[in-house]
């Protein structure tokens, strides 16, 4: 179960907005986290106030564009513990799983508002909004995806397999 406060973003947020290309040479994760969502217009409030344990709820085609993992690293780096999207671009989705960032696809994201406190059940693909007494159905993760998330990413997962 994941519990957290919601930050909302729109459709087609691309990887250049999540993590601008000029920062690609950076390798230090803390340094990378300083630039999360820097290219998204009107993201100042998020950048200033995002806290560890928060959840992002986003629109269609989130993470479209480049294959850069930095986009996941930077989102994880600011403390986001789960991203819920109407849909994901597939490379971002895979990168998130492989780096241990839980991601859920859910068609009802419009019912979730910024600042809501929500609870996510990855196994069932269920999202609960207790203050509003609402439940949303998302796509549950597959067995392999859950195993990788549980290991906190592909590296640890493969270490265990070795």
């Amino acid at each position: 179960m994941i519990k957290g406060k919601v930050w909302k973003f729109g459709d087609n947020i691309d990887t250049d907005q999540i993590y601008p290309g000029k920062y690609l040479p950076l390798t230090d994760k803390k340094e990378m986290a300083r630039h999360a969502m820097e290219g998204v217009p009107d993201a100042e409030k998020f950048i200033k106030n995002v806290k560890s344990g928060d959840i992002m709820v986003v629109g269609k085609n989130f993470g479209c564009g480049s294959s850069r993992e930095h986009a996941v690293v930077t989102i994880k780096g600011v403390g986001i513990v789960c991203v819920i999207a109407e849909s994901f671009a597939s490379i971002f989705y895979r990168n998130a799983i492989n780096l241990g960032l839980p991601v859920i696809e859910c068609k009802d994201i419009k019912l979730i508002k910024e600042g809501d406190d929500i609870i996510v059940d990855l196994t069932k693909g269920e999202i609960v909004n207790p203050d509003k007494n609402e439940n949303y159905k998302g796509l549950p993760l597959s067995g392999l995806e859950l195993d990788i998330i549980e290991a906190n990413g592909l590296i640890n997962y493969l270490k265990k397999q070795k």
Partner: protein
Amino acid sequence: MTLAEKILARASGKKEVTPGEIVMAKVDVAMSHENADVVLRAFRQIGVPKVWNPDKIVLLFDHRVPAECEKTAETHKRIREFVKEQGIKHFYDMQAGICHQVLPEKGHTRPGEVLVGTDSHTTTHGAFGTFSTGIGATEMAGVWTTGEIWFKVPTTIKIEVHGKFKPGVSAKDIILHIIGKLGADGADYKSVEFSGPTIKDMSIASRMVLSNLSMEMGAKVAFVEVDEKTIEYVNRKSKEISSTFNYTSNPNANYEKVLEFDVTSLEPQVACPHSVDNVKPVSEVKGVKINQALLGSCTNGRLEDLEVAAKILNGKKIAKGVRMLVIPASWEIYLKAMQNGYLETFIKAGALVLNPGCGPCLGAHQGILGAGEVCVSTTNRNFQGRMGSSESFVYLASPAVVSTSAITGEITEL
């Protein structure tokens, strides 16, 4: 089965696969550029001493060549050391060009195979009937370790293209038009198959434009129907092509949908800021003043693109106040463009001819935009801030539109 299903069935050792099924596929080619540095760090963490097969890994530098800063210089150094340590045979350093052009040229791109690359535009290789797609660096570390990767078998959209292009209209225009119609997520996690008489008439270089840009509508893979042209090209470049595999979808293959387009009356198209699906005919965008014109990239930096531009720029001058950058996609193209006299034409017209690489396309170096500046570009992305300032503007168009606009100083109808 569709071609995507056939290749995944073969790669996972199954007789048949169906869309939605998760398969573990054997990888034939694993490609990385500068981000091999991120891959090798993840690989070290996994802790196996040797990569699964050093002959199936292809590495080169294209994003930042020559190194534009100290951090990149160190990145290049670490990768060179890794290449030596692991005995990786296919390493081209910075003397080859952009990965998506170099791999076909050097015979690493073959139909019926699984090719993964740590670059989103790896879809380009689908133009040769290759199941090719972009993956992240950590996932590539997994491939280097096991030689395998999981895929969810995608559904397939077939796109049939008919008609003959008007003069000055090309592959770039039809694919921008298609992306405009389908949207930036119109093919999310789908296999796309291009076929029809217009596609059959296209050169290999033009077909690569379709597969390259299909990434911008979310395609997982983007095939162009394999024909004698493909086989001739691949045979010329590679000795390893398998002759026993049938590279086309079966006649009874199951398509999610079949779309038809006719190019007969299509005019040149422009993708306007800040998304690739914001597509308009050039007549609706003409007159937009430009500061920079960029000809190059894995989309449109091939010899036929440079030829179109050289014909337009021959004896002409780039408009005052405009800078034009020309970046051939590979060394092979660079050399041929020189031998054919195109580079001389560009230089005399006042363009800056740069070394092959990705350069300014991703805002890495060699032509970054300042606030308020406008670039018309043959590249594949116009996201906000992609080429520099988040207050700059990138318009995507064909080599013909970009070259014509460089002369007039504004986006120009041909």
